[in-house]
């Protein structure tokens, strides 16, 4: 049996052991695969996929989550989360994700208790341990399990298994929350999140697929994937004109392109207040 298939069997066995689960469901590659396997193993009466809704979740992402759940018979609930009202979140220190995830899992814990679901689970995979993730610490405080990571499934393996299951998410680019685009130390506000969401919609309308708009206050810095970087350079003037219409004073194109966790490279700036 191929390695990924063996890991999938381990995942399925673990979900059966859990007996019932409440899945933190963003509609992305990992949590979609997890929700699909969970409904497969446990049935729709013993699982629920829950999406936290706030200004940090784009309308496109929410739509993707709804469409996926409907297509695969996955019971789906949306709950409003109030992280924006927490100044420990909005001040946007490097531990921002801890407060966001604490709010999320607190809400999902309430849902699980009311619905009688035994275990909270998330879509963290085996690769996620390599990045700075204070949100993981929040999940641990709420007893959240990460069955994909516990089965040893990497992102590449989850994509391959999703493809084998015919899931449309198999090649979807990673889509972390909009707040992850705001440079640390600059407060997260609904207005800034909306600027990012609209800016990324504009760039997507130009045919780009994998990129990030990083919010640096009056400046938008666009990171394109290596495959799209030259096209991004060629479109720089057009994009600058359109994104400045959203309220940015300047729009620049990162010369090194998209790097996962790129804003974590700025942690020293926040910690010391100097470069």
């Amino acid at each position, binding site marked *: 049996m191929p390695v990924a298939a063996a890991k999938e069997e381990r995942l399925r066995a673990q979900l059966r052991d859990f007996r019932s689960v409440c899945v933190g469901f963003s509609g992305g590659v990992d949590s979609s695969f997890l929700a699909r396997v969970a409904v497969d193993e446990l049935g729709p009466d013993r699982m629920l996929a829950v999406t936290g809704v706030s200004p940090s979740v784009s309308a496109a992402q929410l739509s993707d989550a709804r469409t996926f759940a409907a297509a695969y018979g996955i019971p789906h609930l949306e709950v409003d989360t109030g992280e924006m009202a927490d100044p420990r979140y909005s001040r946007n220190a490097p531990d921002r994700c801890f407060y966001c995830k604490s709010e999320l899992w607190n809400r999902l814990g309430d849902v699980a208790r009311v619905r009688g679901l035994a275990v909270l689970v998330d879509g963290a995979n085996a690769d996620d341990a390599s990045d700075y993730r204070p949100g993981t610490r929040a999940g641990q405080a709420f007893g959240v399990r990460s069955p994909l990571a516990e089965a040893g499934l990497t992102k590449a393996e989850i994509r391959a298994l999703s493809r084998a299951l015919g899931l449309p998410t198999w090649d979807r680019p990673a889509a972390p929350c909009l707040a992850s685009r705001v*440079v640390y*130390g*600059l407060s997260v506000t609904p207005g800034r999140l909306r600027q990012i969401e609209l800016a990324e919609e504009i760039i997507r309308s130009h045919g780009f697929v994998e990129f990030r708009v990083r919010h*640096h*206050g009056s*400046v938008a*810095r666009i990171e394109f994937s290596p495959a799209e*970087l*030259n096209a991004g*350079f060629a479109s*720089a*003037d*057009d*994009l*600058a*004109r359109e994104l*400045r*219409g959203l309220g940015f*004073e*300047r*729009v*620049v*194109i*990162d*010369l*090194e392109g998209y790097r996962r966790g*790129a804003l974590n*490279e*700025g942690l020293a*700036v926040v910690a010391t207040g100097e*470069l």
Partner: protein
Amino acid sequence: MTTNDERAVRAEALLGRHGIAGARVVPLGAYGEIAAIRAPAADPADLARLAPEIRALGFRYVALDPPANDEVTP
């Protein structure tokens, strides 16, 4: 836009040494963490190759500053 930022001055000199004459570098961002390079005659791929050296001068990010940023918005 001109700058007295020492990092930017050194970045412009570095670009000049690599044959990219007349380039302008301006620190941008909430903390001056971005080196924004305006060099219309340069191939962005050449600038990209030099980005790590420019970052090492004290910037966190190195970016292309398109001329459209200086257009007056209606």
